[in-house]
């Protein structure tokens, strides 16, 4: 019997090539999408899962209260880890982890490499595997360096027999290689090329011993018998006990299992993170699969006239209904399996492009039991979902009716079919609408006035003793003729500065203690950036080392008082500053915040870490970079020239949103494509159903246009119903998504209209093929068939 079903299926597939292609290709798109999304979701969910102690590893974060709001930082006092290690028995290991970029040099080979200064427990916590050397080596050598296998190969061409050799860091100090460790997988939260002892890092850094200074990451591993609540409570208490900040800064535990997906905090409480995208894309995968399955159902039931005869004959010849149900389920299973096999090839084909979009290196592993199980699961899900309606609907046909010749609209079936088309288009319209909203929101944030001109602006990293020659460097850069101005800043303008509280001024309310960002700049920084001085003046060119002059942003000035604040004094600890200028606010850190945070600038160019160079208009970028690199190589020969365009760094801050934008574009396109396959098939079916009516109308004088209208109007009604249903759902979803942006767009009417027009246009375009074909059919041919 099974063989008989297969024969019918395969011969039917070849006989109705058009339907088969629409059906299978719709499923292929659905399964391919779902598989790609699965690979991404799997990768996201597997983050940090490769660490055997993952269930006991935590990072200590600090909740810091400023002006009634709690901010959560991955920054703790340097002394926290060692103290906890001594005082809290539930903690098995602790390590501090300070990420740094250093120029690592071996002879002629010199590269900037990311690394971290860690305590010895780090190796135990993260079960680091030594390929060469050992943990004992590491422990016994404070000036040792451990490098990854990849780094070893980059410098030495091999990872063997290099223990004991030296690498120079930042052209200053030699570190002896004490070990080579296995490269960590891509999907872990720790990224480093080298590790060095925290003991060497903390030498001379007294501030690491202060409880009031939060500048170190601290990680711990609990012992297996530890009570989480006890440790958590100890972590919460220890900072307030050692400071006099009345508990406004305290530690919290953040499990490694949440580092990647649940790292967002609001008012001191975990409130999601990337997990929202994992959920979102899983739902999208499911919706696309359902759209593809609906296609299958619709096309199968639309072919019911052709299949009815077979059903009738089989029933007359003795087939039970269950046989037919099984037959149709087998058909959907076989078709879905064919689609799944084709999808695997598509996934392999598309994976490199997909990886490029999402910035990962995902791989499909055909021997991986999880991958096989998921693919099988998708096949079973699609088979059941696609097969259920045709199986129960077609098998319900009564042979008496069929053998008389089944005609007409078959009442309930038409209703369900139309309902399914509506479901497909509702999903498609939501995707289209979402794409429009995401695109507009990203454009809105990107195009916002962030308070300075970010175009034609290069940030150059200051390394070594460059600042000693900064006047020469500045002049040589200006002499290239391509640079308009040069400014210095201690921090990357797009990120935070030295953030802190404890500022006071005359008239400040007692409990008002805002978080202020401090930056050290030179007198050229403000004009170079295009930041406007709205009151007072800029710094003088030659700063006095004991200068107490500061420039503040408008939001800070507003905190001090209405009217001019020039000449007012600001105090912090023992320092007194005098406000000489007020500049406009500019956005830093999170670009989607509504208002920029307050900033205080000190005229302190010797603390600069970045040179900002404003390129003159219409200068060829390549030539500018070459000219800048020549100047840098001349004045800082031992450090490779490292630069970035501020605009590129700015754009990279929207990585997640741009990923959502790109993927929602693709999913909208695919969803509408699959839906159109279904619509195309249904239009063909309707034309077939209405062939007699079309013929009679043509005989009576109808022209092609009126026939096309006749066939299109029913579908147009379905699309309009879909629009009516989709719009409130889409509004709900997207206004919820927009909530996460303080600086956001308002959803406006044209977005709904555009989504609706796109859906109508695409649907009508699809239907028109079949409608025109039907309208042009020779009536004599149909009459002969009748």
């Amino acid at each position, binding site marked *: *019997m099974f063989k*008989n079903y297969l*024969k*019918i299926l395969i*011969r*039917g597939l070849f*006989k109705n090539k058009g339907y088969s292609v629409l059906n299978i290709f719709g499923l292929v798109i659905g399964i391919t999408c779902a598989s790609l999304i699965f690979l991404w979701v799997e990768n996201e969910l597997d983050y940090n899962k490769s660490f055997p102690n993952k269930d006991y590893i935590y990072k200590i974060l600090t909740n810091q209260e400023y002006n009634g709001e709690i901010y959560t930082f991955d920054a703790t006092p340097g002394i926290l880890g060692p103290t906890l290690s001594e005082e809290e028995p539930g903690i098995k290991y602790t390590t501090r982890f300070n990420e740094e970029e250093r120029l690592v040099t071996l002879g002629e080979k010199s590269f900037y490499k990311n690394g971290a200064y860690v305590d010895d427990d780090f190796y135990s916590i993260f079960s680091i595997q030594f390929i060469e050397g050992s943990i004992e080596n590491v422990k016994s050598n404070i000036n040792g360096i451990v490098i990854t296998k990849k780094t070893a190969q980059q410098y030495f061409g091999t990872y063997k027999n290099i223990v004991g050799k030296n690498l120079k860091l930042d052209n200053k100090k030699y570190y002896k290689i004490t070990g080579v460790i296995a490269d960590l997988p891509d999907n872990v939260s720790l990224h480093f090329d080298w590790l060095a002892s925290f003991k060497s890092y903390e030498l001379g850094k007294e501030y690491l011993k202060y409880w009031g200074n939060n500048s170190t990451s601290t990680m711990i591993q609990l012992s297996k018998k530890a009570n989480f609540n006890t440790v958590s409570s100890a972590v919460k208490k220890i900072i307030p006990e050692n400071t006099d900040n009345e508990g406004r800064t305290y530690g919290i535990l953040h499990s490694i299992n949440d580092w990647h997906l649940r790292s967002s905090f609001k008012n001191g409480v975990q409130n999601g993170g990337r997990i929202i995208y994992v959920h979102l894309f899983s739902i999208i995968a499911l919706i696309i699969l359902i759209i593809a399955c609906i296609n299958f159902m619709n096309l199968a039931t639309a072919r019911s006239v052709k299949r009815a*005869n*077979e059903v*009738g*004959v*089989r*029933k*007359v*010849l*003795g*087939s*039970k*209904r269950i*046989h037919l149900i099984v037959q149709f389920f087998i058909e959907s299973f076989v078709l879905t399996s064919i689609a799944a096999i084709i999808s695997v090839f598509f996934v392999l084909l598309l994976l490199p492009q997909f990886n490029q979009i999402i910035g990962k290196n995902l791989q499909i592993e055909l021997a991986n039991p999880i991958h096989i199980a998921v693919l099988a699961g998708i096949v079973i899900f699609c088979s059941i979902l696609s097969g259920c309606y045709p199986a129960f609907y077609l098998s319900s046909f*009564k*042979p*008496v009716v069929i*053998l*008389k010749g089944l005609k007409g609209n078959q009442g309930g079936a038409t209703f369900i079919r139309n309902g399914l088309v509506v479901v497909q288009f509702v999903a498609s319209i939501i995707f289209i609408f979402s794409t429009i909203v995401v695109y507009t929101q990203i454009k809105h944030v990107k195009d916002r006035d962030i308070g300075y001109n970010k175009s034609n602006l290069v940030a150059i990293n200051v390394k070594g003793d460059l600042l000693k020659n900064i006047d020469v460097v500045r002049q040589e850069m200006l002499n290239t003729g391509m640079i308009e101005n040069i400014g210095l800043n201690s921090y990357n303008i797009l990120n935070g500065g030295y953030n802190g509280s404890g500022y006071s001024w005359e008239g400040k309310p007692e409990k008002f203690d805002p978080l202020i960002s401090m930056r050290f700049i030179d007198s050229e920084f403000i004009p170079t950036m295009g930041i406007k001085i709205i009151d007072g003046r800029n710094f003088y060119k030659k700063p006095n080392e004991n200068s107490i002059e500061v420039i503040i942003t408008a939001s800070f000035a507003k905190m001090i008082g209405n009217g001019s604040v020039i000449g007012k004094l600001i105090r912090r600890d023992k320092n007194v500053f005098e406000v000489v200028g007020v500049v406009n606010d500019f956005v830093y850190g999170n670009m989607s915040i509504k208002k920029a945070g307050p900033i205080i600038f000190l005229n302190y160019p010797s603390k600069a870490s970045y040179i900002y160079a404003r390129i003159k208009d219409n200068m060829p970028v390549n030539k500018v970079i070459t000219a800048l690199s020549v100047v840098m190589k001349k004045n800082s020969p031992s450090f490779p020239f490292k630069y970035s365009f501020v605009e590129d760094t700015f754009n990279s801050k929207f990585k997640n949103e741009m990923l959502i934008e790109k993927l929602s574009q693709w999913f909208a396109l695919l969803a509408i494509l699959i839906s159109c396959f279904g619509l195309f098939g249904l239009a063909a079916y309707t034309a077939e159903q209405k062939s007699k009516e079309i013929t009679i109308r043509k005989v009576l004088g109808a022209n092609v246009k009126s026939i096309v209208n006749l066939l299109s109007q029913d579908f147009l009604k379905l699309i309009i119903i879909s629009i009516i249903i989709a719009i409130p759902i889409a509004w709900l979803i997207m206004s919820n998504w927009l909530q996460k942006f303080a600086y956001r767009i308002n959803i406006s009417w044209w977005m709904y209209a555009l989504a609706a027009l796109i859906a109508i246009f695409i649907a009508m375009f699809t239907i028109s093929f079949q409608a025109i074909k039907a309208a042009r059919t020779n009536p004599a041919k149909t009459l002969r068939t009748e």
Partner: protein
Amino acid sequence: MIVIKNLKKSFRTEEVETLALNKVTLTVTEGEFVAVMGPSGCGKSTLLNIIGMLDNPTEGSYKFAGHEVSGLKESQRTQLRKGNIGFVFQSFNLIDELTVFENVELPLIYLKMKKSERREKVKMVLERMKIGHREKHFPHQLSGGQQQRVAIARAVVSNPKLILADEPTGNLDSKNGTEVMNLLTELNQEGTTIVMVTHSDRDSHYAHRVVNLFDGQIVTESQNREIRATI
């Protein structure tokens, strides 16, 4: 074999109720060849469908080989029909995707017959219907007469006691029509009971008895032996 008493069948739509069969009483004995005639819409096909257990009567009794059929569920009717009744339709109703051989084999598959046995039976019946050389062809590759011979082969392959033919020559030219009628006559002479619905006077002459229906009622019944003998 067939005992029908006071059979009624009505079809109800939203607005009207149509009485397709009205108190029909009919007996068909084993080995008989009965033709059912009448104008379009008189209830011929409805009667045939009820006899073939494809449909249930609204009222009355229908006994097939002693079993009361009226009121049986679809699955029970299917069970009783399997192997006992063969159907021949005007429009052949072959499955397009199956070859001649596979179409004829289908009823035997539902009877769960072994493959070797099925093969033997199908081969035999195709030879008998003079269509053996076409066993690997698909229906659309055959002429109308050939397709109807395949349909008859499929109807008889399970050796049913009864063959129901609904205008079996309706889609055929006279030559092929005669061939089909001769085949049915042959089957009848071998003992198969045949009930045939027809519009054709010529075809009705092949039957032993002609039942005339009008407005859902049997209006006349006539014996036909002499006429048939002269054809």
